[in-house]
């Protein structure tokens, strides 16, 4: 080999080594998904998931799997307007978007997508009509109240009762289908919102304290199978803690009217529930409950010290 040839060989080897050393293949988590079929395949894997009892699955990117699927489908639709507009795979794309949207609580949008698929000449038209019917009922039952401020607490309670009734009827209608989990989540969301409404109203109208407590306890009792059961317990403990604070604010511990037993009734329930949640190994709420318990115990000590100065 001539010196020139040797130099060329060395240079080539160097270039090859450099090529091998640089630019490692991208991590598959960073790469775009391959095509529509892959998006639909992942979505389909999770369509029957019980998202009422268990947290929704996470996509490889760490996002909620339904949200990630919806984002990817949106990307596809925006990137290929002509092809989709021509009717190529349009039914699959819209139907899948509807499936993702109904899991995200976007029932109006899901209804729209199902409706569009139902008007196409596709084997997905029939299931889309069923999806349309269910999501329409979900959208109607969960539509926001247009007059929330003007209503009395009783009217608000009646409205929640009516909403619950509609959803319970729907739940029995979709008993064997994946929507039953969606309906259960909506029932839970409604119960939580109602409890939160009465908890906030009780701050203005002390007569509603008992109702607020009853509603919060009901959420814990009715939804003890839910993935949010620890969160509901935390909300109940927070309410007890807030009621004790409210009592101590309105009747300062140093005043003669302060009744330690009334304060303790709230405080002991709050600490007991915080303790229960703080012992739930493997749950995120454990940390929150442990720190809330510590903070609340600090507050309780302060109240007791004010009542009995040392």
């Amino acid at each position, binding site marked *: 080999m001539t010196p020139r040839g040797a130099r060329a060989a060395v240079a080539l080897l160097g270039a090859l080594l450099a090529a091998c050393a640089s630019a490692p*293949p991208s991590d598959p988590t960073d790469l775009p*998904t*391959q*095509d529509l079929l892959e998006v639909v395949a992942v979505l389909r894997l999770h369509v029957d998931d019980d998202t009422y009892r268990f947290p929704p*699955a996470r996509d490889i990117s760490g996002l909620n799997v339904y949200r990630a699927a919806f984002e*990817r489908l949106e990307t*596809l639709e925006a990137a290929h307007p002509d092809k989709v507009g021509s009717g190529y795979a349009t039914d699959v794309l819209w139907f899948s978007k509807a499936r993702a949207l109904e899991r995200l609580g976007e029932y109006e949008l899901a209804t729209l997508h199902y409706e569009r698929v139902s008007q196409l000449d596709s084997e997905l038209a029939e299931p889309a009509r069923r999806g349309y019917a269910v999501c329409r009922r979900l959208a109607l039952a969960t539509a926001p109240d247009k007059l929330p401020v003007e209503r009395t607490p009783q009217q608000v309670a009646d409205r929640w009762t009516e909403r619950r009734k509609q959803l319970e009827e729907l739940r029995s209608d979709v008993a064997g289908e994946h929507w039953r989990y969606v309906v259960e989540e909506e029932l839970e969301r409604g119960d939580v919102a109602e409890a939160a409404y009465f908890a906030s109203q009780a701050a203005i109208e002390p007569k509603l304290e008992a109702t607020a407590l009853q509603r919060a306890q009901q959420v814990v009792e009715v939804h003890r199978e839910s993935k949010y059961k620890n969160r509901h317990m935390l909300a109940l403990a927070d309410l007890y803690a807030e009621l004790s604070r409210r009592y101590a604010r309105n009747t300062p511990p140093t005043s003669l009217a302060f009744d330690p037993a009334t304060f303790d009734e709230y405080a002991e329930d709050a600490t007991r529930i915080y303790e229960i949640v703080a012992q739930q190994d493997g749950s995120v709420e454990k940390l929150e409950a442990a720190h809330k318990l510590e903070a609340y115990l600090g507050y309780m000590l302060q109240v007791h010290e004010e009542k009995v100065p*040392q």
Partner: protein
Amino acid sequence: MKKKCRNRRRLGVAFLCSVALCAAGCAAHRAPKPAEWSPLESARAPHDPLPDDAERSAARLAAAVLADRRGDARAEAASIDREDAAREARGEKPSGLADNAAELLAACDGSDAFAEDADDLLDRDDLDPALRRRVEHARDSAPLAVADTRLAEETRYKLGAIFNRIIEPASTLAMTGALNPITAARGAISTLLTAWTFPSASPREREALHEYDEWLARHPEAPGEREIRARADELRAKLARERATRDMRGAQAAADRRDWEVVDILASRALRQLPDDADAKALLAKAHEESAKESARDRASLGVRALAPASLAPEQEARWLALARAAANAPLAQVAGQARAFADAGAPPELAPTLRLLESYEPLARGDEDETARALARVPEHHGAPDTASRQAGAALADPSRNAYAHFRAAESADDTARWKWLALGHFANGFPHGTIWRPLELVLDVPGVATTLATIPFRIVQYPAARPQFGGGVIVAGERYAARHPDGAHREEVHAELEELYAQRNEYAAALRHAEARAEPNAKEIAQYRAKLADQLVAAAEKQRRTDVRLAYLAMVLRDLPDTPAADKARKKFIAERADASPQRIRMTHDFLVEHPALWGPGALGIAPELLDGKRANGEIAEDGVTLLGKNVIRLELEGHEPVTTRVPPDDFAHFVALLEETSRSHLARDAREKADPDAARDAFFDDTKLGMLDSADPRGSARSDAVYESTHEKYGFVHSRDPILPVDIVLQGDLESLGLSAFPRIRLPEPAPDALLYE
């Protein structure tokens, strides 16, 4: 004749027996004495004598101080001094009010100035002991005094700690160094290297800073203001450095695990403490850069390359589309079948992972967990190009809830490894522990210790049964996930059995019972054992409850849910006794406490007949348990050898008694350094209601009941008044099986943390 005699003898024996029985019976049940029939007397308390001249002057002095008439106050104080001088001249005792008058005059200047006047007061030799303690407390709790005390304690603490840190390993080295020279030398060297390291802003220094700030806020223009401010600023700078160091340590650890969000928070916090810190700035910039990259990666992963694969042949497009339609809605088994058919018909190679992902739906449709996991594991294909479908299969397999059995098995395996490692390597099980000295040197010092650790394996084998419950936490979490996700899963029996055993080892019998009952063939004997142990736990837990209603709830739970257990009988008896004995209050004074404070039970207070507390059992005596306040004005007297007597005290006398009882407690607290305040809001609320005459109804809520007990001084502290040792040194003898170390050395007693140290940590 003989028979008659024998009969007579029998009659005699029977008579003697009956006499003996009668005597015994009488001894056991003597007739109640008059004081036991009627334990309260109706005598009225003698009136207090009318106030004398000194007392009248003291009252006028108090009024003058309250009205801020200082001239009048001084005149009245002088009047008391004159009266005392006159009494002394007459050979009488002084009024004892001069010290109180001096305190009142000192109080005229307000609480801020009181601490300065306290020294003058303490110079007096006529101070009442309780008043002296109170003035000393006021002097010592002034902000500057607290700050000085804490800083002096900190100096003592550091000097004492250095001595203790050096003497202990030195003693071990001297005594058992020959037996285990490696560990002893390692302990001595590492201790010597770290003996001088302390946190730069200790809780005591932080409290001193707080007190300086408090003083500066109260005395912004005082003469020593500049000096105090300089001291406060110096402490504040130390505290800022300490906080920044701690935050940066956390930020660096977060950076090592690439948790950039946490790095951002902690490095920003460090920068707020030390705005010019270059390390914090660099770390924050790095966090921002990495976070931006992560966001870009997340955005990229949400994209899709194409609507359909470009490599599809025209005749394959319809098939691909049909498969996509099926995947969107068809039953899982049908989707899997179509995917397999497409693959068999020669689908493009890059579609293979996606098709295998769809094929995995077939075992999923059958509910076959294991086959689904195997099918998902087959999805990835190493064909050189990045494979995006396999990552989805990987995500499904990595989900601890969806792929619960695999995670359960992994947790079991990790737990087995952890246990074996602990048995073999003890405290080296998780690698060489991180200490405070330079890491390479630490490793060099630690390596020889492994030999000792291996030699002590037998000790750990002996300790293993007790240490077992510390392991298995991860298995429990993973097993519970499986049981929740797959109540009818293929491995439920195995999981329930494992969880049952782990919970039983941890004495968590409710959970063990739950899993034992969930097994396919429940073991009746084990279930009975768990139920019995659970019932025992509930009864024991009931006894620990302060509130009666909670105690009753625990006992009721045993009676309702576990009535067939041995503890149920005990629970039943306790429940009945608690219910029968329930009372709104349960504040008790022991016999000796009452003897120590006769004013509490004399006329005008409880009004108990004196015979019941004169120590003579013959005329009746209150038992050791004493007298219990049951709520309203009802009291119960425990009597020696008789049933307790429950009676009512006249409301006015009862209110007077409560006031005396509170005064007695306060007086004890003021005079006796061993006494500690015992906050009890329910007791105080009951006493407040009593003094206000609100005795019409008792509060039935469990939270309103107090179980306070008043005991005599010797019941609380014994008959011998223990004194603190003069020398602040303890002699310590200690040994350690694992390192075979033994040492004996003097240890300097370090200052106790301040009562509110928690607020400065």
